[in-house]
C-alpha cells in the first residue's frame, strides 16, 4: 500500500472509531500505511504486473451444460444421427455409458450473431446479443468424468480435495479493497449446494481467512451478521462499546494481534450496515431490474443473484463465485435424460440474467476491468444416453470469458466434427487458471504458498497462458 497517505485520510481514519477508542483507528491507519502487514491478511496487494482485470465474477453452471447444444454447432451429428461413433474414435467410457450408444443431433437450431458472427443456439436468445463481448474457448478438457472431482479441478486445479480454490488464491494474491465486505463471496443455488460442495470454495491449505464467504439476499446476507432476535441494534452497539473498552485494558503496546482483533470488531460493526445495503436491490431502477429478469419467473432468482454480484464488485469485492444449479437433479444442468426439457429449463432461468449482467457491466464501464467467466466442470457427449439425454464429456468443453481484457467476438480452439475431442490446441484447467491469473496481473509462478515441503501453486507444475483470449 502507498505510504503517502493524505493527512485528511489519517483524520478520517482516526475519527472513524465510532467511540471504540483510538486503538482500533490507529490500527486501521497503520494497516492502510502497510505498517502492520502480518496482522492483516486481507489488505489490498499490488499485482505482479499491470492487470487487465481487477475482479472476477465466475458463473458456474452446475451439472455440465452441453456446448454442442449451445455454442458449438455440429452439423455432422445430424448427418450421422442414430449411427454409432466411428470406430476410429476408440472406446469412450463415461460415467454411465460405455460408448455403445448412437449419435444424438442437437434439437436446437444455431445462428450467427453480432459483427463477429459467433454461433449460438436458440437456447441463448439473450446472451447471443452480447456475442461481440464474448470470447469462447472450445477446447478445454479435464481429467475426471465424475462431477465432483471435475468441479474440484475447475476450482482448484486438482481432482482431489484439499487445494485452495481459485477465489482463495486470488484473494491471497490481491487482497481486498472492500473493508466492510468479505473479499471472496459465494452464492449457491437456493435449492442446494453444487455436487462438489464446500471444497469448491475452500481455502485448502491456505489460512481459512481466504475461504469464500456464503452470501444470500435478504436482511441478513452473511451468517451471524445481525444480532439475534430480540437484541436491538442499540444494545449491540452498547455491548460492542463495552467490549472494546475491556479489550483495550487487555492490550499491551506492540501487541499487533490484539490490535487486529479490536479492529476486527470495528470492521464487523461496519459490515452490519454495509452488507445489507450491498444486497438491497430496492433502489435499483425498474429498467435495471428488468434487464436481469427480476420482473418475471423463471429468471427472478438467478437474476437477483447476478444483480447482487454487480453491486458487490462495485463495492470492492474481489471475487464473486455464483452457482447456477444445485440440490435436486432437476435443478442441475445434468441432462442424462430429457436433454430438451432440462436445457430449456436451465437456460430459461439463466440466459436473460447472464446477458443482463454483461450489458449492465458494460453500460457502467465496469466490464473493462471485470472478468466474467461462464463455465462448468465438463461438457456432454455427442452420443445419447437413454435415447434422449447425454452423458459427461471431459474430453472437450466450452467456457467463455467476457470483459477484463478478454477479446470479444472470438473463438479459441476447436473440437472434432462431433464435438467429442478438442483438435489442435487443447487447454487443461492449468491453462485456464494461468490465463485468469494473468488477466489479474498475477504470475502463476510467483503466487505460491509453502505447504508440506512444496511451494504449492494454483497451476501445480505450471499452465500455459492462452494469449488468444486477450491479445
Amino acid at each position, binding site marked *: 500500500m502507498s505510504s503517502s497517505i493524505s493527512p485528511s485520510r489519517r483524520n478520517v481514519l482516526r475519527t472513524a472509531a465510532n467511540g471504540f477508542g483510538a486503538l482500533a483507528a490507529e490500527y486501521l491507519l497503520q494497516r492502510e500505511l502497510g505498517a502492520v502487514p502480518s496482522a492483516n491478511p486481507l489488505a489490498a496487494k499490488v499485482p505482479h504486473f499491470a492487470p487487465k482485470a481487477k475482479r472476477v465474477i465466475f458463473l458456474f453452471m452446475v451439472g455440465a451444460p452441453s456446448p454442442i447444444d449451445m455454442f458449438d454447432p455440429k452439423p455432422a451429428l445430424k448427418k450421422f444421427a442414430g449411427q454409432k461413433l466411428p470406430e476410429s474414435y476408440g472406446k469412450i467410457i463415461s460415467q454411465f455409458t460405455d460408448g455403445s450408444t448412437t449419435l444424438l443431433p442437437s434439437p436446437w437450431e444455431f445462428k450467427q450473431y453480432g459483427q463477429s458472427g459467433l454461433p449460438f443456439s436458440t437456447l441463448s436468445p439473450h446472451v447471443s446479443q452480447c456475442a461481440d463481448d464474448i470470447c469462447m474457448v472450445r477446447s478445454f478438457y479435464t481429467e475426471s468424468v465424475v462431477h465432483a472431482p471435475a468441479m474440484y479441478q475447475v476450482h482448484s486445479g486438482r481432482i482431489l480435495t484439499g487445494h485452495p480454490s481459485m477465489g482463495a488464491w486470488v484473494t491471497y494474491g490481491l487482497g481486498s479493497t472492500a473493508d466492510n465486505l468479505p473479499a471472496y463471496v459465494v452464492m*449457491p443455488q437456493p435449492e442446494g449446494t453444487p455436487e462438489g460442495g464446500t471444497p469448491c470454495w475452500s481455502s485448502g491449505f491456505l489460512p481459512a481467512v481466504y475461504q469464500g*464467504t456464503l452470501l444470500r439476499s435478504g436482511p441478513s446476507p452473511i451468517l451471524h451478521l445481525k444480532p439475534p432476535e430480540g437484541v436491538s441494534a442499540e444494545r449491540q452497539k452498547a455491548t460492542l462499546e463495552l467490549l472494546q473498552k475491556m479489550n483495550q485494558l487487555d492490550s499491551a503496546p506492540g501487541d499487533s494481534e490484539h490490535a487486529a482483533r479490536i479492529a476486527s470488531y470495528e470492521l464487523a460493526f461496519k459490515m452490519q450496515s454495509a452488507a445489507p445495503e450491498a444486497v438491497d436491490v430496492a433502489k435499483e431502477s425498474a429498467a435495471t431490474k428488468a434487464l436481469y429478469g427480476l420482473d418475471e419467473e423463471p429468471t427472478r432468482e438467478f437474476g437477483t443473484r447476478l444483480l447482487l454480484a454487480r453491486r458487490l464488485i462495485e463495492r470492492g469485492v474481489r471475487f464473486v463465485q455464483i452457482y447456477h444449479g444445485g440440490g435436486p437433479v432437476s435443478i442441475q444442468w445434468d441432462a442424462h435424460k430429457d436433454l430438451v426439457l432440462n436445457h430449456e429449463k436451465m437456460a430459461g432461468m439463466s440466459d436473460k440474467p447472464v446477458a443482463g449482467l454483461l450489458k449492465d457491466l458494460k453500460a457502467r464501464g465496469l466490464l473493462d476491468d471485470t472478468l466474467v467467466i461462464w463455465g462448468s466442470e465438463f461438457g456432454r457427449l455427442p452420443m445419447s444416453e437413454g435415447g434422449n439425454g447425454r452423458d459427461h464429456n471431459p474430453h472437450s468443453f466450452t467456457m467463455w470469458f467476457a470483459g477484463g481484457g478478454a477479446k470479444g467476438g472470438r473463438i479459441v480452439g476447436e473440437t472434432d466434427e462431433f464435438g467429442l475431442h478438442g483438435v489442435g490446441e487443447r487447454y487443461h484447467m492449468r491453462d485456464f487458471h494461468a490465463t485468469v491469473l494473468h488477466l489479474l496481473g498475477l504470475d502463476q509462478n510467483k503466487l505460491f504458498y509453502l505447504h508440506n515441503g512444496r511451494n504449492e501453486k494454483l497451476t501445480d507444475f505450471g499452465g500455459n497462458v492462452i494469449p488468444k483470449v486477450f491479445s
Partner: protein
Amino acid sequence: MRNFVAGAACVGLLAAAVDPREEAFIGTRRNYWAFQKVERPAVPAVGGVWSKTPIDAFVLEAMQAKKLTPSGVASKRTLIRRVTMDLTGLPPTQSEVDAFLKDTSAKAYEKLVDRLIASPAYGERWALKWLDVVRYADTNGYELDAERPQAWRYRDYVIQSFNAGKPYDRFLREQLAGDELYPGDHQALIATGFLRAAPRHVVGGNTDEEMNRQEVLLEMTLSVSNTFLGLTVGCARCHNHKFDPITQADHYRLQAVLASSKLDEPYIATKEERLRYDDLAMKHAAREKPIKDAIAEIEKPTRARLQDAKKKLLTPEHRAVLEIGKDKRTPAQDVLFKEAQKQIGLSWDEVVNALPADLKAKRAGLRRQLHELDYEEPEKPAMAFAVINAEKAPVTHILKIGDHRHKLDPVEPGFLSVLGGIEAPKTPQGRRAALANWMADPAHPLTARVMANRIWQFRMGSGIVPTPNDFGQLGGRPSNRKLLDWLTAEFVSSGWNVKAMDKLIVTSAVYRQSAAIDAAKAAIDNDNRFYWRMNTRRLEGEAIRDSVLQASGQLNAKQFGAPVKTPLEPEIYDIIFTEGEPDNLWPLPKDKTETYRKSLYLLNKRTVRLPMLTNFDQPDAINSCPVRPVSTHALQALSLLNSPFMHEQAVAMAARVSAACKDVDCRVKAAYSAALQRGPSAVELKMAREFLSAKKMPLEDFTKALVNRHEFVYIP
C-alpha cells in the same frame, strides 16, 4: 557422521543394497542434520538460580548468544490459567485458582501439574492436536461425504492412549501395524484407523478401480511420512524429491509396504451382541414397514399419472418395447427397453411437487414419523474401522508422474534409502510391522525428534523446528538444535513417555515466564524463536466453544462415544449436499445436553464445517495440519457476538450469575469469576455498573461481552 543403519540389526532386518543411481542422488546429502543419530548433548553450565530444568540451561545459552535475557516469572494466577488451558483445553475453576493461590508450598505448582496431567481432559487436549495431524474426521469427504459410523473409536483410542500414558513407540506400533503386532487386541486393531483417517473418494458409476486404490495408498503414504517421519515423502510421487534425498523409488517402496493392506471393518462385538442386533434390526424394520408402505400408497396414483404422461412422450418403438416380457426381448429391444425405463423414471422431487397439497402434508407427516423412529434404531454391533492384511500383495510399480496408467519399474517394499534402505518382507504379512519396528527403533534419527518437537510446540506455541511435519530442506531449521536433541534423548530414555515430557516442559522456567512484550528484546527476536518470553496463544475455536460452555455452566463433560450433532444454522444445513430429499439430514440428539459436549465429540464432517470453528482456523481435515494458522477477521467477531450458540450461552451464563446473587456488583463479580476466574478491577467494576445500572443493559449482553474479551480467548 553416524548413520542410522544400526537400528536394522535389532529388528532383524537387513540393509538393502542401494541402487548406485539412487546412491548418487543421495550422496553427501546423507549428512543433513535431521538424518544424524541423536547424541545427548551435555547440559550447558549456565542458568544459576533461574534455571529449573535442563531445558532452561539450553534455552538460556541460546538467549545469551543473542544478547537476550529471560522475562520475569508470570503471576501465579496467570500460571494456573496458562497451564490448565494448555493441558486440558479449559480454564480452571475459581475454586481451583483460589486453592492454588493459597498453596504457598514449594511443590504447589508441581502438584497442580500432576493433577492436570492425570485429569481425563489431558488426553482430550492431546487428541485435538493429534487428530489435526492425522486429519481425522467422521466422514469420507468428497461430494457424498458419507459418515463413517465406527470411525470415532479411533478418536477415543487416541484420548485413552494419552490418558493412559502409553509409551509413544507402542502408540506408533499400534497405529501402523496393531493388527499384525498385537493380534486379538481390539484397541490395537482400532488404532490402525490412523491409516485410513484421510478423506476417501467414494462414488458410483464407471470409476477406475486402480485409480481409486492409488488415491487410498497415496493418502496412507502421506499420513505415515507426515505424522511419524516429519518428511514430505509425498513430494517424490512424481519424481525424485526436489530438495531432500528421497527418491521416487523410495516413495513407491513405502507405498509397497502399505499395498498389501486392505480397508476393513472387522467386528469387535461378540457373537451374542451381533445376534441380538440382528434380531432388534428385524423388529425395527417391521416397525418402519407400515409407514413406508403408507408413503408408497400416497405416491402411487401420482407416480402412475406422471409415468403415463412420460410414456406418451416416448417414441412409438420405446413405448412398444415396454410391453414386451423380459425373455421375449431381442438384444436390440433390450437396449430400447433400458432407454425407455430411464426416460420414464421419476425423481423424488418430481413426485412430491406433483402431489396435491393435502397428500403432500400427509406424506411429510409420515416422513417425520419415520425420522422419529430412527431414534430407536438399534445400535450397530461394534466394529473396528481398520486396516488389515490382504491375502495377496499386488506388485508395486514406480509410476511415471504418479499416473497409475504409466507403470515403470517394479519395486520391493522398503524404507528410505537415505536411512539405510531397509527392505520389508516380500510376503503380504509383516510389512507394516517391519515399518513400525524400524520407525520405533530408539536409534531412528527422526521418529523421536519429530514427536519431541511436537510436544514442545504444543506447549510452547512454536516448534524448535517451526515446520513439525517437515524436517527436510524446505522446512525450518531448528532454532536450538542442542535443545531439540537433548529433549529427544530424554524422551527416548524416559520410555517414550509423553506425560513425563509434558511435565518437564511446563515446569521449566522458560514455560513459567511472563508473556509481556519487551520492545528492546522484540527488536532482536520479534518472533520469539529464542523464547525470551512465553508466547500467548489464541484458543482454538473448539476450546473457545468449550470454555464458553464452562463459563455458562452448561458444559457436558461426558467422554467418548459416537459423534454428536449440534444445531446447524439453516444456511449451513443448506450446504449439506444431497440429490435426495433434504429432510432429516442433520438429526439432533433428543437429549439437549448432548449438544453441550466438548467440541472434540461433535460430528466432524469434512464438507460441512461449523462456522464458529472454521472462522477460528479449524483445519479442513483434508490436509494434515501440524500448526494451526491464527487469522483475525471480522467474521470471527460476528460469530462470537451473534451466533445462536453464543447468544444462548450468554443468556445461560446470565441466568447462572443471577441465581448466585441479586445486586449488580455481586453479579458482575460472579460473571468475572465464571469467565476469567478473578474479580473485576475498580475500573472494570465502574464500566460494568455504567453498562448495567446507568444504561440498563441486560446482564446477558454483559456476559457476552466478557466471553468475547481477549483475556477470555487467549492462553495467557
